[in-house]
């Protein structure tokens, strides 16, 4: 019987939640990497036992962890057990934790400045990995979206990382600026029909696309309006919170922006707003039903000043038309005195026959629905603040 594995990153460690296909009884393992911030962990679509995790700390920096057995054991891929700890030249290994912007003359770009919060020029500084996106086909290839915003790739199982420097250096970089959480590249979408096409999103710069495997990039923000920047329709500067895609229709993307929910039907060439009847169009997460490409989910958050659900009611809103008409999903969710947030990487869907939907909160709850959102129940209630949620369907 198949089952699911939910990977949860929190402010104080990682947790692995497992259940059979009924998704009623859950085993909880963790915390892994206790006390460290786990911004994201995700499994390889090509090998469900291959997991990657971003472990970081303001004190100690960035660590990349990898599991080859579904999260039972972990290693830093730059220092695998049983291998020499130094290179033949005598240099210590640990390149898996090393993210260095590529400024080489051959492949890189000069390290320009970006805008700081007050609009002044600020140097690019690596801080942490926000998001790890494993390749759809190769377990050893994985992308990392980092702060300060850039995209890195490893093709050796996370042992070494190389920047796809054309994104940071394509020209608009000096206009990018940090969102409240930092200037992060938080979304990486791989097109299952075109290995050369990648979408990324950066807060606060916008969405970008490459059609040649990362050699060239361009902003795809036409149609976005952001009233909090000097030119609301500028080419870049938009605080995109999250983008979602259904794998059967990679040209259709859904976006939760700082304010506004939007969609594009032409791979980002033009966006249109579909906020519709939402109680507020501010929020972070957005995701698509595994079997219904026009069914999308968001969690409205009252405002950028308050960062909790409207009226203290935690509601997931579902549109079955991919557009402006939505219904509030409340069965099993707290409908009074609830003041948690749901952060941008903290929603996921599974691909079982009855689509499962999962999300985590800053209050430490992970909610699951085994019926596409009709009803919800907490898997766990008291984890540290949840930063990310991913789910795998196991054979």
């Amino acid at each position, binding site marked *: 019987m198949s089952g699911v594995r939910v990977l949860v990153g929190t402010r104080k460690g990682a947790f692995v939640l497992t259940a059979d296909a009924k998704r009623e009884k859950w085993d909880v393992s963790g915390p892994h990497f206790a006390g460290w911030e786990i911004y994201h962990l995700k499994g390889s679509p090509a090998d469900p036992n291959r997991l990657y995790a971003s472990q970081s700390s303001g004190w*100690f920096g960035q*660590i990349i962890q990898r599991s080859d057995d579904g999260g039972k054991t972990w290693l830093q891929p730059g*220092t695998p057990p049983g291998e020499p700890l130094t290179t033949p030249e005598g240099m*210590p290994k640990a390149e898996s934790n090393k993210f260095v912007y590529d400024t080489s003359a051959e492949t890189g770009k000069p390290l320009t400045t970006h805008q700081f919060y007050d609009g002044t020029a600020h140097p690019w500084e690596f801080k942490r990995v926000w998001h790890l996106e494993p390749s759809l086909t190769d377990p050893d290839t994985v992308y990392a979206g980092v702060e300060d915003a850039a995209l890195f790739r490893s093709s050796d199982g996370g042992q070494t990382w190389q920047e796809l420097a054309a994104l940071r250096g394509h020209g608009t970089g000096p206009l990018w600026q940090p969102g409240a959480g930092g200037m992060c590249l938080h979304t990486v979408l791989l097109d299952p029909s075109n290995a050369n096409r990648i979408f990324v999103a950066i807060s606060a710069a916008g969405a970008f696309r490459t059609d040649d495997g990362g050699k060239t990039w361009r902003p795809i923000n036409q149609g976005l309006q952001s009233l909090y920047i000097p030119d609301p329709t500028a080419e870049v500067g938009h605080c995109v919170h999250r983008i979602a895609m259904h794998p059967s229709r990679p040209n259709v993307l859904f976006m939760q922006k700082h304010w506004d929910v939007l969609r594009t039907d032409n791979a980002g060439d033009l966006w249109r707003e579909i906020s519709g009847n939402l109680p507020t169009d501010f929020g972070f997460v957005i995701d698509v039903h595994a079997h219904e490409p026009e069914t999308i989910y968001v969690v409205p958050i009252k405002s950028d000043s308050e960062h909790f659900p409207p009226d203290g009611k935690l509601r997931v809103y579902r549109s079955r038309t991919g557009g402006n008409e939505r219904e509030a999903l409340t069965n099993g969710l707290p409908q009074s005195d609830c003041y948690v947030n749901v952060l941008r990487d903290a929603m996921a869907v599974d691909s079982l026959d009855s689509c499962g939907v999962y999300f985590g909160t800053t209050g430490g709850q992970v909610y699951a629905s085994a019926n596409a959102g009709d009803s919800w129940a907490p898997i766990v209630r008291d984890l540290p603040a949840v930063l990310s949620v991913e789910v795998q369907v196991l054979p």
Partner: protein
Amino acid sequence: MIRVVLPYHLRNLAKINDEVQLDVQGQVTIRSVLDALEKRYPMLRGTIRDHVTGKRRAFLRFFACEEDLSHESLDAPLPEAVASGKEPLLILGAIAGG
């Protein structure tokens, strides 16, 4: 033998239960101690000093013999008591928050 005490999270990362004892060749400085530490525990590279610049990470401090050595040159000789192994070099996380 040089003694080094690491903060809790770095001991966990390196799978160390107690203080570290290192052989350091040549002059005993913070740099030479960190070089020896990272050679034995490569998973610590980048966690105490930056991968590229080699500078101390901002929220870490170096103490020894009841002195704060955080702002001394990395190449300054450490106190004789550290070089002789009588006292440890303490690497600890700076307090940030209450």
